[in-house]
């Protein structure tokens, strides 16, 4: 119990004194995860929408695989990205291993199926609602996708936020491809893992509370900006 109080005290102290290291790794955490969420949303949202609209032969199989990929083990993703980006790997020439870019790549791979799958479910329901109207108005496929993405934007925001939630708390993949290098690739989660390993539970807990605080603040800010829950069930 005392560790928790110590953790709370450490968290308060780190925030209150605007600890330079804390700010640096917090900003890096935000940078890596926000970038990954934006890229994964850019791929996943249209992909989910496309899957909801298109009928093709192995559609069900593709959706089942996509749903299964939501549970991709981050460590395995990290390992595969590590092998791809390592000097002997196919993309080794770019020298991306142990950089924030490598961490973003790993997170994009983890988050895209999650965002696409949630988006698919949301758009599928909306498509069922709008189907007759959009067919009757003789809309093109592009217009249908645009309409569904726009009218389903709040549900899609939830998909992206779910991605953010998973990304900001992820440690396995970014530890492998980032290497947890101080002032280069250290983020909140890898720092927590490091401090726990060193036995400094209070600092680890303090960082953990900062991480939770950060996740809540980002979610609240996005809800506030987008007006979710303000305009009823839209």
């Amino acid at each position, binding site marked *: 119990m005392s560790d928790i109080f110590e953790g709370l005290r450490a968290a308060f102290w780190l925030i209150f004194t605007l600890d330079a290291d804390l700010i640096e790794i917090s900003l890096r955490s935000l940078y890596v995860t926000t970038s990954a969420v934006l890229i994964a949303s850019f791929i996943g949202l249209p992909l989910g929408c496309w899957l909801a609209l298109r009928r093709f032969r192995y559609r069900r199989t593709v959706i089942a695989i996509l749903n299964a990929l939501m549970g991709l083990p981050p460590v395995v993703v990290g390992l595969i990205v590590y092998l791809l980006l390592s000097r002997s790997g196919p993309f080794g020439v770019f020298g991306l291993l142990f950089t924030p870019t490598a961490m973003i790549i790993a997170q994009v791979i983890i988050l895209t199926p999650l965002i696409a799958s949630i988006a698919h479910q949301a758009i599928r329901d*909306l498509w069922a*609602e*709008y189907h*007759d*109207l959009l*067919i*009757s*108005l*003789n*809309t093109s496929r592009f*217009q249908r996708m645009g*309409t569904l993405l726009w*009218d*389903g934007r709040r549900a899609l925001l939830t998909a992206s936020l779910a991605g953010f939630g998973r990304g900001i708390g992820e440690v396995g993949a970014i530890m492998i491809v980032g290497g947890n290098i101080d002032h280069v690739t250290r983020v909140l989660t890898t720092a927590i893992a490091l401090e726990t390993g060193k036995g400094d539970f209070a600092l680890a807990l303090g960082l953990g509370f900062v991480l939770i605080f950060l996740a809540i603040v980002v979610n609240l800010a996005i809800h506030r900006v987008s007006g979710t829950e303000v*305009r*009823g*069930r*839209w």
Partner: protein
Amino acid sequence: MVTSILPLRASDLKVRKSRRLLLDGVSLSLSGTGTTIVLGPNGAGKSTLLKTLHGMERLAGGDIQWALPDKQARDRQAFVFQTPILMRRTVLENVAYPLRLNGTSRKDAFRIATDWLNRVHLGKALNQRATDLSGGERQKMALVRALIRDPEVLFLDEPCANLDGRATREIEDLLQEVHAAGTRLIMATHDLGQARRLAHDVIFMHKGALLEQTPATTFFENPMTAQAQAFLNGDIVE
């Protein structure tokens, strides 16, 4: 040069769903004027016929021919559903939506939509969510949304089915206006009173087949089939 999508000729239409034949060899032609009312008991195929003519159902057989190519014909039709489909937008955005699809600027689309909504006394609801409207208002909004592109042919699938007398009256008045302005109306209903008020000619359907297509006066005074006679008498149609 042909400028109208009418006449419409449909021959031997067959529509099948889950091995059930919903339309069974329906043939008809529709000229450029009048209001056609599609009558028949539940499950007769009225809605399916309208959706098929509008191009929303896949044909298992038969052929539909408009006077203009299919794409042009589709762009000059509109459809009003029995249960209005409400987009998750404001009333104004709902009504302006078809114009925005056509590339009309937001400003112009909103101006035209506002004019239409004022015309049906929904001017105060412009910025309300469509879901906040009453049943009658929803249907009026859906009707206006269908009319905003000035369709040559308007299909209506029991638009007053769940409305009270006053709302039905408002919808009918608007339909009369629209018809007077030159829009061809093809409407399914099971309300005989409404059919008598609006119909110029009647299509009577039963079990997916078209049993009669006659002028309204002929149909109501001298129906040709026993099923139509039973339907008009309020008997159970076997």
